[in-house]
């Protein structure tokens, strides 16, 4: 090798959204450093929101301009293709919405350093001080979420993974109420996250060992040429899978989800349940079909088992949950399973799979927005000690505030996939894709896909049970004497719930526009 190193070329235009978000994040840190305490919030809020919206606008512009690069940007490190842009858009909307929620008073601890119940804490609360670092942290996390599904080599992906996760670890620990739980969640998430990312990295190393490169394009080339049964490759594939599946919370790597979702401040839970999931699924798609597409005969059967297990665990365990946030966590596990069905379906050789790809993208959009809405509602049902998580406290909510309960019930029905809600079309699209690919001649699984879909159907029937159970509680049972109070929602929260509701209803009635969007995004497939 000669010593000459050419200067790398960076497509700033294409990367603009990403850069904007990261830039704003850095700016946020500076604000933390220099702006006076009383001003910070006033600066952060618009900065964060504007940067997110701006980034979203940039994404729109790129889409409208339409001339996507044939090859990955930044020396093949970042692939900015249809799916990536779609996911970026989704992530940006979600994070913007979540920021509205985050901005509400009373979610975050006054001073994380202060011991719960200590005098410092009281003073801090009295002083009304708060952690404005939250905003830059969120921005970093969002940046990570954008980079994660877009990164075109395993290194970038690893870095993105960490950039996404590290801020979230911290944010999980910053709940104002029930701080012990919050901190516990944070620690568990951190340790397990680090643990799993170590697996990811080792997997990457193995694959590097096999292919001599970590760029997905290179890997798939290598797969195209050499023998596919190299144990290095298999181990690498497995460990890589561990890291990714951990992030989307697929069984048997789902253990962290309930705990973390429950302990974390609800707005952050919303961000994780929506944004992280979207990003992670995007990353899974990219790795498994761009990098390892030629290996599908090996990984699809395994993925089949994982998907099945995930759906079952998620929906069965949710039945007996008594904590609303835990229940939603399990439900998100079940939905991860449904998404994996989509991932399974998306194997066919280039061109064939755009259908199922768009199905997944559609599912991600509608599901994540409904989720955010649901968590937003959770933030409003309060007890003296904070949010009322225990389901028994939700009894008779329909009597006390019919509108809120009605909205929540609607979200639940959407989760359950009842027709005329967005959730139904999400499920429908994924199932259709799966059956479709199963029917394709030369599908490695064939009839097994039908089996998986039937399993999915049964799972969603089981899942329906616990969604319905909450509705029963809210509407059919008499209110508890000292029922929870319904906080007067801030403009932000109202906006969040409204957006979520509009999408859930609107897409439920007229899914075609969103479908077109997803189809368009999927039509180009991934850059290889």
């Amino acid at each position, binding site marked *: 090798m000669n010593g000459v190193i050419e200067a790398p070329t960076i497509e700033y235009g294409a990367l603009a959204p990403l850069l904007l978000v990261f830039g704003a994040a850095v700016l946020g840190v500076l604000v933390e450093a220099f702006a006076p305490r009383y001003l910070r919030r006033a600066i952060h809020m618009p900065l964060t929101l504007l940067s997110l919206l701006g980034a979203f606008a940039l994404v729109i512009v790129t889409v409208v301009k339409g001339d996507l690069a044939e090859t990955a940007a930044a020396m093949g490190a970042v692939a900015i293709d249809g799916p990536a842009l779609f996911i970026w858009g989704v992530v940006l909307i979600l994070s913007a919405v979540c920021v509205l929620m985050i901005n509400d008073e009373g979610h975050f601890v006054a001073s994380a350093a202060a011991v719960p119940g200590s005098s410092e804490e009281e003073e801090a609360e009295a002083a009304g001080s708060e952690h404005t670092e939250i905003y830059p942290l969120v921005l970093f996390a969002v940046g990570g979420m954008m980079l994660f599904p877009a990164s075109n080599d395993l290194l970038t992906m690893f870095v993105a993974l960490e950039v996404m996760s590290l801020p979230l670890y911290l944010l999980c620990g910053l709940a104002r109420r029930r701080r012990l739980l919050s901190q516990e969640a944070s620690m568990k998430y951190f340790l397990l996250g680090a643990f799993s990312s170590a697996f990811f990295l080792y997997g990457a190393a193995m694959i590097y060992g096999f292919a001599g490169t970590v760029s997905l394009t290179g890997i798939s080339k290598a797969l195209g040429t050499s023998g596919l049964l190299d144990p290095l490759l298999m181990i690498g594939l497995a460990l890589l899978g561990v890291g990714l599946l951990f992030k989307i919370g697929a069984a048997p790597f789902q253990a962290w989800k309930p705990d973390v979702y429950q302990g974390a401040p609800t707005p952050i839970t919303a961000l994780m349940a929506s944004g992280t999931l979207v990003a992670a699924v995007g990353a899974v798609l990219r790795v498994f079909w761009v990098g390892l597409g030629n290996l599908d005969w090996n990984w699809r059967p395994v993925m089949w088992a994982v998907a099945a297990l995930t759906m079952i665990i998620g929906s069965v365990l949710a039945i007996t949950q008594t904590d609303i946030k835990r229940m939603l966590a399990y439900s998100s596990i079940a939905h991860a399973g449904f998404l994996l069905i989509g991932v399974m379906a998306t194997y066919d050789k280039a061109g064939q799979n755009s259908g199922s790809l768009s199905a997944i993208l559609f599912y991600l959009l509608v599901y994540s927005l409904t989720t955010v809405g649901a968590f937003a509602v959770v933030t409003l049902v309060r007890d003296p000690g904070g949010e009322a998580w225990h389901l028994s406290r939700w009894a008779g909510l*329909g009597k006390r505030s*019919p509108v809120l309960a009605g909205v929540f019930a609607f979200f639940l*029905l959407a989760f*359950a996939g*009842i*027709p*005329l809600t967005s959730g*139904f*079309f999400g499920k*429908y*699209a994924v*199932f*259709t894709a799966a*059956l*479709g690919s199963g*029917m394709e001649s030369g599908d490695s699984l064939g009839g097994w896909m*039908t089996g998986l*879909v*039937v399993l999915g*159907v*049964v799972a*969603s*029937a089981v899942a*329906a*049970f616990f969604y*319905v*159970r909450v*509705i*029963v509680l809210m*509407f*059919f*049972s008499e209110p508890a004497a000292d029922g929870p109070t319904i906080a007067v929602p801030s403009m932000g929260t109202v906006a969040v719930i409204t957006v979520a509701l509009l999408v859930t209803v609107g897409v439920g009635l*007229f*899914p*075609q526009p969103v*479908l*077109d969007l997803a*189809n368009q995004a999927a039509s180009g497939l991934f850059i290889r």
Partner: protein
Amino acid sequence: MSSLWLPILMAVPVLGAIVVALLPKGSDKAAKQLTLAVSLVVLVLTLVMAFQFPSASGERFKFEAVYDWIPSFGVHFGVGVDGIALVLIALSAVLVPIVVLASWHDADGVRTADGTLITPKRSVKTYFSLLLVLEAMMIGVFAATDIFLFYVFFEAMLIPMYFMIGSYGGAQRSYAAVKFLLYSLFGGLLMLVAVIGLYVVAGKGTFMFPELVGVIQDPATQKWLFAGFFIAFAIKAPLWPVHTWLPDAAAQAPAGAAVLLVGVLDKVGTFGMLRFCLELFPEAAKAFTMPIVVLAVISIIYGAIVAIGQTDMKRLIAYTSISHFGFIVMGVFAMSQVSQAGATLYMVNHGFATGALFLAAGFLIARRGSPHIADYGGVQKVAPLLAGYFLIAGLAGLSLPGLSSFVSEFMVMVGTYSSPAFGSGALTVAAIVSAVAVILAAVYILWMVQRALNGPTAEPVKAFKDLNVREVAVLAPLVALIIGFGFFPKPLLDVINPAVTQTLVNVKVDNPAIAEKGAGQ
């Protein structure tokens, strides 16, 4: 090509529902009157449409309207009616105003004759707007000519009914509501798989029913898809052994909702069998006929026997319906002109008869606050009108000749016995066995009458007031229809017969009835 009849027919109640829901607080009375008005408008429109039906254009489906809904799924908002759908839509349109009138006070706290409160005050507006939404969906489910659209209504219908049972029903309401929802949802999801499968296998890129008839050829595939559809429908039109949700749901639902549940919603199941199971998968349908007829006969006899043993009026009526649905299913799968026309007619008549019975029982229960037959006795003496209507409804339930249900039951049995579709004597045996239900029916109805209406007047019954004007206005039309169609079923049959003939053509059973008698044309 596209007529606005059906879209309007569905839009009116939806708009009505929205308006009712948006009424200001405390305008309960207005809500009731508005709902009644809307439902009457729908009824009038339906009747006008029905009278135009014979002259309307279109081969199989008339008043067709097809708009793209979700092009990328090949889903259309496609509606249109054949004779079968028409009579069922008419049934719903007739029942809804009656139900509205019947449940006038259901939501504002029901007090018994001696003034004890049975059900507390609940939101009136919600109840009646749900009712209207349900009406729109009932019309839609029968009118849909796009299978996906049918499925959407099929599932979405559950929700309003779920809330009507769950928040306005009796003591066990939430258990009943959940059972009802999950049972039907499960069936519906299996059907969803079949629907998707149909779409994928047919590879037509469309869900329009007419374009999918006769597309699936491979028998094995047919059987799988048939199973998917049939299980859903069997649960919906409770067929033994997946029937147990109905007694709970019907017993817990307020009388009005129970009428719509048993009278219309369950018909979607039998309607689906006739329209979809048979025509889309004829080979499978023929292959499965015998087992299904056996199940039907079991339902007939089993339902009747269990009904005899009930102590709760509404449960009893529910079980009689299970028996009656057995007849309908038997008629559908006997695959003869007479039996299927009879089955379709049965769907309508059963709606009227059981509706009347549920409502009469409801009025009885509203006075006493107990569904237990043992708590009554000697009603005849104090409330002869109520007793009289109850008796007539009961007689319709045991399909006494001269009342509408007799015609249909007779046609089903004769049609099954004489079905040319299958050489085997199994169908004749089925018909004979099912005729035993004629005896059992007399037992369960008359025994209930004897225990509830006859004998010395029980103490709490003495306080009963006889039917008031509203209640008479509820029951009288039904009784009129029951007697009227008992002697002049021709108008209905003339509409039904051609549609049935068409069905049988698509199922490709040799059917002499089409040639000469039976087709009625």
